[in-house]
């Protein structure tokens, strides 16, 4: 059975497409995140639809068919040696390197198997076709669509590659010039695109059909389509949000190496000041406040470790930004 894409009846002119990151997401996962986005939309959610793009079924095809352990090994080794060249003030750089390498290992399929990356890209393009069809069924032509895309982690890589392909292949009719569809927002959360690019450059000799990987064969840039006298970016607004403790987003204990952080000209960059732990449910570590609270409650502060890569936390921290972008006044 081919991978299913979501089809939702439109109730207005606005839609949000969510693209998840690494993991083993199944249809129905991310329901909580959809709820978060609907809360961000507020009253406008009644006239908005929220899609979620699932692509792990496609990844599973390749995982089941192929055993790429040997290739994974060289990929991870390259990642570790790359990290070893960075002077980081961390107590256990080997452990950090391993954890990052294991995480980045999830990108092995799209990097080392051209069919794998093209299959995911084709499926994402199919999802976009379906969204345009859903809008058309509701009488909303592409030029009136207010479609925003929010991607997290590895989803950012697939989104970046897909948008660049749409910009280049005008016969798809999905861009602002080729199809009259200009995305309202493209929001990358914890994007590993630059990180993956750096790793791919290290193992370039192993990467097949490099020219088909836009994030490797060309400088990172916001995709644009041009007509005779006008050029238009695929999205009116592009934002990249990451945390300064999120290694997938290109930050290593608050360091921001150029080889890891995605920094495209024209993007709206937001770097969250993250903490390793929350005290009493808050990331704001004000010692005075902590002591006051402890004295008042006569109990020790509750310290809980944070996941700097959590998608829902990114959304929570940026509810106001998202509201401004997704539902402009």
């Amino acid at each position, binding site marked *: *059975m*081919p*991978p299913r894409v979501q089809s939702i009846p439109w109730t207005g002119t606005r839609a949000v497409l969510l693209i998840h990151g690494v993991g083993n997401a199944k249809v129905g996962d991310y329901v909580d995140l959809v709820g978060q986005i609907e809360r961000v939309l507020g009253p406008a959610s009644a006239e908005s639809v929220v899609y979620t793009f699932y692509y792990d079924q*496609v990844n599973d*095809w*390749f995982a*089941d*068919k*192929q*055993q*790429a*352990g*040997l*290739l994974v090994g060289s990929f991870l080794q390259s990642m570790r040696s790359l990290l070893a060249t960075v002077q980081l003030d961390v107590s256990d750089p080997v452990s950090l390197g391993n954890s990052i390498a294991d995480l980045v290992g999830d990108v092995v399929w799209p990097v*080392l*198997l*051209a*069919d794998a990356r*093209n*299959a995911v*890209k*084709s*499926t994402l*393009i*199919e999802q976009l*076709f379906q969204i*345009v069809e859903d809008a*058309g069924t509701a009488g909303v*032509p*592409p*030029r*009136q669509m207010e479609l925003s895309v929010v991607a997290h982690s590895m989803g950012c890589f697939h989104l970046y590659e897909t948008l660049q*392909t749409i910009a280049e*292949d*005008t*016969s*798809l*009719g*999905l861009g*602002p*010039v*080729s*199809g*009259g569809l200009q995305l309202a927002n493209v929001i990358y959360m914890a994007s590993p695109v630059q990180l993956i690019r750096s790793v791919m450059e290290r193992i370039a000799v192993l990467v*097949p*059909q490099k020219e*088909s990987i836009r994030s490797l064969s060309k400088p990172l840039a916001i995709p644009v*389509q*041009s*007509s*005779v*006298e*006008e050029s*238009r970016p695929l999205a009116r607004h592009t934002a990249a949000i990451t945390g300064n403790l999120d290694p997938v987003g290109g930050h290593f204990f608050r360091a921001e190496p150029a080889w890891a952080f995605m920094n495209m000209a024209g993007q709206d960059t937001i770097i969250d000041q993250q903490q390793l732990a929350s005290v009493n449910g808050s990331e704001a570590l004000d010692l005075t406040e902590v002591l006051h609270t402890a004295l008042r409650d006569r109990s020790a502060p509750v310290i809980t470790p944070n996941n700097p890569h959590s998608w829902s936390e990114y959304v929570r921290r940026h509810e106001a930004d998202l509201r401004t972008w997704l539902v402009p006044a």
Partner: protein
Amino acid sequence: MTRTRARRPSASNRIRLSAAVVSIAWSATLGAQPPASRVEEVTLGDAMRSLTIAAQVGKMNVKRPLAQHVLDSLMGAFASARLTSVPVEQIARTLQPNAKGGPLVTARAINREQVETRTGAFREGVLRLNGIGNTEVMSSLRSEAVPGDSITKLLAPFDALVAATRAAARARNRDAIARFERKYGPDSPRLNYLEVGLNYAAQFVPGFKSTESGGPSPLELIASYSSLSMKLNDSSSATANLVSAGRLGLRVYFFGDGWGQDGRFMRYLKPAHGSLGLLSLGPQDDPLQRAWGRGYRLGPFVAWGDLFAGYVGGSNHGLVVGTNKFIIPRVF
């Protein structure tokens, strides 16, 4: 002497004025040639006319003269190539990468004349037309404050061309996904470790490369060892032995419609793949033996779906039949 300044019309008046212009222009078009009532009946000529009128309404010749010049040139080229009567759905199919024939052939069929327009140039021309309509024409209309509803009505034939382009692209994209599924999906042949390595390396070789618009290559390398083979001896004793066989060859996936269907019989009549290559047996007709090295026997094989048949020569020659199934997954 009192000078009276010509008053600039208010925003609402400008909208009414533009709407009236659109209405008049559209009416004129209606009079000249009735627009197609159904999207399937919209022709390239209809789309061109709607763009021409929209460009006039938006005063594009003043605001974006270069775009107007290119638009006029494209109109002239399409008209002289006598392609204006070709339905946009047919036009759209030719815009997809690797499309063959197309409007050039259609135009020849319609006009019984040699058309000089080259298909490649035609493709670029129509895509450029799409671009001008979606950007320069649209910007011109908006700068004249033409209401959205009027734009939608005015550009309906042009929008039909863009929608047809998207529909053709979607069909092509779905076809690519179906091919990926046939080659890699749950019903596809599994690869052993050696085959994984060989097919990884094959990605660098022309013929085995994936294409972004068309999906995977239909080719896949085989280097397998199977313990579920049966050798039918040619000798007078007419015995059969369970043997282990090695195979080195090429698998070809059938991506055409109707192939790779499920069903007890259809999967054998029109399977998802076939293959051919060389088959080897060890020196003895025994199972779980090496199929190479000293004393091995070699012969051709052909596979149809999961079934294969081969023939080995030598002193102990005979027909070998078997299946692609593994006893131990991914190994043999």
